């Protein structure tokens, strides 16, 4: 049984100013097994962070089920949900903003214990906090510090310590390294990998950076305007991307080897707005270089392309060469 199973979840928001609705997440299904990392990749407006918040029930889905350890979280009341939260944790992108600036590091890290491990007395708690701080690579005496007195990397370690202290089985990592410098990022990614191995954690790793995703995850789901367009084992999707959007995303990656230039696929124009998503048809149709009339006729569902590799594109089977040839449209903007 999967640790986390999303079944057809949707979330809409009212657009600012009351004009229309934003379909932030639209009929998304996804599963994560215990101990594995599934990456959710997409650009801004793709709905990936909203999906993360739906998993954590920081937002209520309009439709669908979020099954965690076999329980549908959407059916739980606040008290029941609180019990689940010990095993379902989160680390946010902005390390400083996600820590209460007036609480010491020790208080921040021990707070989940106070809530979830009521039986623990304060000296046991203190020992546990010290252990956890050391485990994430912080000195135990940083417990007395305020978040503002730490560097960005240290702040993110505090966030990670807070997330792991109640022995969760799943952590939602919402762009945990995006605001960090390259060398600090490498430290945090290594730490996350070590923790996963030692504690058997599963990660939902939300990111826009394909190199990071390729490095950390076993499976990947590519999101665009609220929908998953392609999902599968990370090696399959990256070696043989079948959705034009995945291909475009992959080709936007910049290799650090000056002599290696990756094949290009240019989408037309900028990312669309979730407010003007069409009722039917493929969400990528307005930007897709290989769009045909059939793409606009019906909703394009995720369909198996290869074992475990699903693609939501009616031209998924066509060769990639044809695709690249059709995308020499240059930098024109429409």
């Amino acid at each position: 049984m999967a640790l986390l199973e999303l079944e057809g979840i949707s979330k809409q928001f009212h657009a600012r100013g009351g004009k229309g609705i934003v379909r932030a997440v639209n009929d998304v299904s996804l599963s994560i097994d215990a101990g594995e990392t599934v990456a959710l990749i997409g650009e801004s407006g793709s709905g990936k962070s909203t999906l993360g918040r739906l998993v954590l029930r920081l937002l209520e889905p309009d439709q669908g089920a979020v099954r965690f350890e076999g329980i549908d979280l959407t059916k739980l009341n606040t008290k029941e949900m609180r019990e689940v939260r010990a095993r379902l944790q989160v680390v946010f992108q902005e390390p400083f903003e996600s820590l209460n600036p007036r609480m010491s590091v020790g208080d921040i890290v021990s707070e989940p214990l106070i809530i979830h491990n009521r039986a623990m007395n304060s000296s046991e708690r203190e020992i546990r906090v010290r252990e956890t701080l050391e485990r994430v690579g912080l000195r135990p005496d940083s417990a007395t510090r305020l978040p503002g007195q730490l560097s960005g990397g240290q702040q993110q370690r505090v966030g990670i310590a807070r997330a792991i202290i109640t022995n969760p089985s799943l952590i939602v990592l919402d762009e945990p390294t995006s605001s960090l410098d390259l060398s600090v990022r490498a430290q945090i990614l290594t730490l996350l990998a070590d923790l996963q191995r030692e504690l058997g954690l599963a990660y939902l790793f939300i990111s826009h950076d394909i190199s990071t995703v390729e490095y950390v995850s076993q499976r990947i789901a590519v999101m665009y305007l609220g929908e998953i367009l392609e999902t599968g084992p990370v090696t399959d999707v990256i070696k043989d991307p079948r959705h034009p959007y995945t291909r475009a995303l992959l080709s936007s990656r910049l290799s650090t080897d000056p002599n290696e230039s990756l094949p290009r696929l240019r989408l037309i124009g900028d990312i669309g707005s979730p407010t003007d998503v069409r009722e039917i048809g493929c969400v990528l149709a307005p930007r897709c270089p290989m769009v045909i009339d059939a793409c606009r006729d019906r909703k394009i569902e995720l369909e198996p392309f290869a074992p475990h590799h699903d693609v939501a594109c009616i031209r998924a089977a066509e060769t990639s060469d044809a695709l690249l040839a059709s995308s020499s449209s240059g930098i024109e903007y429409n």
Partner: protein
Amino acid sequence: MATSPPNDSERTKAAKPTGQFRDFVQMHPIAVGGAFFIVVLILASLFAPLPYDPELPNPEVGISPPSADHWFGTDITGADVFSRTIAAAWVDLSLALAGTLLSLAIGVPLGLATSVKRRWSDNLVRGMDAFQAFPLLILALVLVSLSGNKLYMVVVAIALINIPRYMRLIRSEVLSLREARFMEATTAMGVPLPRTLRKHVLPNVMGIITAQTTLTMANAIVVIATLSFLGIGVAPPTPSWGSMIRSGSSNMISGEWWIALFPGLFVLICVWILNQLSDAISDFNTRTTR
């Protein structure tokens, strides 16, 4: 243990969160000195032996300018202006403090409550806004005179003026705090609401409450002075700065400037100090979190 690199050398920005008061003194010596002045003033007003009985008229002396015997001169009844000014400090400041504490005690919980619940809170806020549109000083005037010049009504009046301000301030502060990422983190951790309010919301609005409280004090001093200037609230012979200014104002034209000037100066100094203190607190508050 995770094989993460030692982070001992990662840069840390400041010292430990101890000695905050010392930092505050170092950063804002004027405000701290001012606060010290007010404390001394209150203590003197309560306990110090005054040179003359502030409420005792002395017809033999009559009106006289500042001298070695009477530092601030004497008023029309011959009472010592210095003794009266100092004695008035406790009368005025205690009323101001009581009014401030009452508005704090009601305004802060109201602010917290209106920022948590939705439907009725909007109505309450709108009601309070309408209430604020009313000339509140006049309301205070009416209330105090209707009560037959009861001093507790002065306190109530000050509270009425300031409760909506507290409520609005706290509400807007908490509403923006709710958008903070760490508040989302508390939800994700399952922190219960009372604990969220106590541990996450209050400490983060404490600074702004303190800053606002000193401002309220300043405002209350002005309100009390205004009321007693108009002959309401503290009535002579009990000394109060407002009534002293009032009684001295008629003498200004004829040249006896000292009767109104000294109490006026004390109002000015107290209000100025409290404003300085408020600025200093909000400045310190923003600096310590970053």
